[in-house]
């Protein structure tokens, strides 16, 4: 197979790339140095990122440059502004940001500096998932190293550019990965998402203009600056340019995080990178981008992994974390696990989400346990329609509703079989439940 060009994981493969010395030797901070040396204007930097077509890697796929441009004009709005880095990677099946923070923290710091330069945020908070001890440690050490080298703090690179980076550890709530929940949590409150509008760019952290970016999104920026938007567009697709980190987990031979251009088919990723389905078995079902994206049948494994193709197929790219289930797996059991996750992680503000996630969990549990009724299948669809889309403050209800709709659409026979047999056909068999470990 011909390896496509990679850049995201290049340094990560090098020994001790988490240290300043090695990272700099391999190109870290070239982007920010270029911007400072050539005296780019913030607008110029935002334009470059816009031109690159970079889309956020946190799940929603919103264009990063456009998001940055929503920050109010500094001349008209002198308020202090913040950057919050979403490193609360909690989507079940997802572990890409972890690799970046563990193996190449200086790459993220450079991304933060460039974002700060573009938006004029003098303070950046990195909200790290609480369970990520090593990534937190590596990133903290890297920030200290960068500060010692004059790359974080006041007067960066001898200019008047200033950016302070503060680390924050989450306490284990999925909902704190939602950008407004994250802001509430950073402010020391319960991680209850805020209704939008107002949007963070207008009223974010402590009521100030704020942008929340995912780790991988920021990580792409130094490369765009260093090599140009045009170079970035040579990879990926027209509407989803660049490479993306795909975490493949589940019933496969070689689980891992792989860097592929956007638009590569899921089948190719599964076979050429993840070693195919394990034990010579066949694929039954797969999640293209974490548990919040719609479960797809094996017949759709040819789909290209990019935002628009998956959206057309009724699913989502999400965090591009493929969870693969082999032919012995029970999708109803998988959905019960996932529904339990959303039931457990709903913040409880919105009626539909608080009650709906619990209800879905109860119904999937009943069907799996053999107490399902035929009408439960329609009820699942109907409840999922009552919860989403866009009916609640944040997208957690959507995240529970999307896989529910998908399982009814693509795996109705499995549900019906459970109801008819009064139990799980594969009950008793060793269930190798993987993927939804959160």
């Amino acid at each position, binding site marked *: 197979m011909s390896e496509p060009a990679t850049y995201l994981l290049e340094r990560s493969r090098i020994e001790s790339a988490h240290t300043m010395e090695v990272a700099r030797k391999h190109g870290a901070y070239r982007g920010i140095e270029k911007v400072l040396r050539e005296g780019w204007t913030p607008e110029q930097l935002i334009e470059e990122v816009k031109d690159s077509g970079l889309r956020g890697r946190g799940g929603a796929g919103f264009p990063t440059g456009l998001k940055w441009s929503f920050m109010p004009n500094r001349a008209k709005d002198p308020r202090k502004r913040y950057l919050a880095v979403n490193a609360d990677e909690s989507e079940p099946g997802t572990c890409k940001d972890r690799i970046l923070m563990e193996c190449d923290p200086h790459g993220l710091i450079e991304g933060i500096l460039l974002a700060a330069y573009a938006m004029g945020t003098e303070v950046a908070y990195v909200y790290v998932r609480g369970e990520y001890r090593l990534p937190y440690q590596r990133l903290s050490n890297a920030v200290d190293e960068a500060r010692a080298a004059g790359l974080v703090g006041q007067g960066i690179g001898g200019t008047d550019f200033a950016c302070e980076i503060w680390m924050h550890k989450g306490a284990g709530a999925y909902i704190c990965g939602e950008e407004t929940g994250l802001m509430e949590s950073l402010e020391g409150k319960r991680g209850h998402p805020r209704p939008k509008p107002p949007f963070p760019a207008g009223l974010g952290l402590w009521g100030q203009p704020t942008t929340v970016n995912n780790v991988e999104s920021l990580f792409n920026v130094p490369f765009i600056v260093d090599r140009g938007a045009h170079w970035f567009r040579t990879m990926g697709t027209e509407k989803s340019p660049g490479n993306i980190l795909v975490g493949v987990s589940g019933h496969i031979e070689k689980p891992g995080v792989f860097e592929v251009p956007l638009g590569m088919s899921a089948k190719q990723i599964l076979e050429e990178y993840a070693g195919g389905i394990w034990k010579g078995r066949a694929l039954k079902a797969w999640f293209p981008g974490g548990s919040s994206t719609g479960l797809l049948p094996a017949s759709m494994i040819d789909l290209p992994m990019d935002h628009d193709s998956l959206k057309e197929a009724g699913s989502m790219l999400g965090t591009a974390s493929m969870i693969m289930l082999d032919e012995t797996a029970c999708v109803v059991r998988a959905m019960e696990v996932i529904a339990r996750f959303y039931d457990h*992680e709903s913040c409880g*503000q*919105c009626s539909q989400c608080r009650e709906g996630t619990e*209800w879905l969990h109860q119904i999937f549990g009943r069907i799996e346990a053999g107490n399902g009724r035929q009408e439960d299948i329609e009820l699942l669809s109907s409840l999922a329609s009552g919860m989403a889309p866009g009916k609640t403050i944040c997208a957690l209800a959507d995240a529970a509703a999307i896989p529910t709709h998908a399982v009814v659409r693509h795996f109705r026979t499995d549900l019906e079989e459970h109801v008819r047999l009064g139990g799980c056909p594969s009950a008793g068999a060793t269930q190798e439940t993987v993927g939804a470990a959160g």
Partner: protein
Amino acid sequence: MIEITIDGRKVEVDPKQPLVRACHEHASDVPTYCYHPGLSPVGSCRICQVEVQQGNGPPRVVVACRTPVAEGMVVNTQAPGACDARRECLEFLLKNHPLDCPICDKAGECDLQDYSFAEGQTEGRSVEPRRKLEKRKSLGDVIVLDQERCILCSRCVRFFEEVTEKPQLTVSDMGARSVISTFADRPLQGNYQGNVADICPVGALTLKEFRFQARVWNLRKSFSTCGECSRGCAITVEVLRGKDVKRVRPRYSPEVNQWWMCDTGRFALEPYEGERAPAALMRGNEGLVAGDPVQATALAAQLVSLHAPGAVIASPWVTVEEGELLLDFARRVGAPAWFVSPAANGLKDDLLHTGDPCPNRRGLLELGFEARTAAEILTALPDMDTAVLVGERVVELIGEADLDALSSAVRLVALEARPPQVQGIVACLGVPSAVERVGTWVNVDGHRGTIAASRAAALGVPPTTQTIQNLIDALAPAEVEA
């Protein structure tokens, strides 16, 4: 003001208010649970969804409490999409809500019950067991929480955060396990706890005092004014079977108390426990005995005609209307008009309570009454031949025992709501209490609050104004000319 269209009608609305307010003000009935006009909108219950169209954009279903109004906005509260969204939301809210209505104090004034009834969804689709939580968790001396009924609207949480500015309640745990609680289960504190039972849209927070006391549809409600301090909060007095005041609740008044009232006022349901003064009492050989009001009035008039009173002393509960007549009376008998002014009672706070227990201080001062403390009155009385005491609580406020100790140093005529145990009283005419008469009190800021007769006074006890008028009429005509 800007113009928007609500359900086909063009209306003028305040651009600073959320859309839900405009809907309510223009008779479009959008249900709300988490939204309360006195609290910040959080948009979490999602029940107030309506369809909105702006410009050439497609119609969208939005929560009305978090949507600002905009010029030209077209709102359809009855659009199928909006109705469906509300119905779905209601179904989720009802999924774990107990079928408690027959024993719930909120039944009859419950927003969830009302909307369920209006929607007509008689059967649930859930076969799951309902959530089991604490049914009677005490939150202090005033409030009981039923966690099963709670729909987590967080109005109570925001009330303490935003109105009293002393946060006491929070939502603890998350998701379907969320419950309202105080930190470390501490009891609620402060003088404003009762308000959370009013704003609770369901029967989750109820008043211990009112628990199982009455079905709300049996309560006769009248609009009145609280007399516990000079704030004069607008209230609703709720009376069961024309007799017992079962509940007092705040009534919205933009100038005075908005939606709130203090617990002191709320629980001052019956200021007079025990005996009430009959229409007339006259002193005979066996002390004060019930008599004929006409005779008692004549006796009182004769006494003050022959022995000019040293003062006419009003209770601070006397209304403006009663005060005017009383001034007329005082002028005719040539006496100064005072009112008893008790000291501040230490209940003053930053929110509503003024600490001044005189509901009509300002009204009486404006009429020309002079304030006198009980001590000043007690010092002055022995030098007087006679004196006239008028209004509920007047004897109590001057000091019943102290008045009694004056013995026959001064002969007194009293218009009281309770039979006074005071030796000096020659004649006493019964008057109605604040919940039995109508009139006006002027509060500390000059706002005129109306008190209403929420129930009938005792048999034969006329309004105070009539009693004073009868006294005036009974004075000798020569005095009138003078």
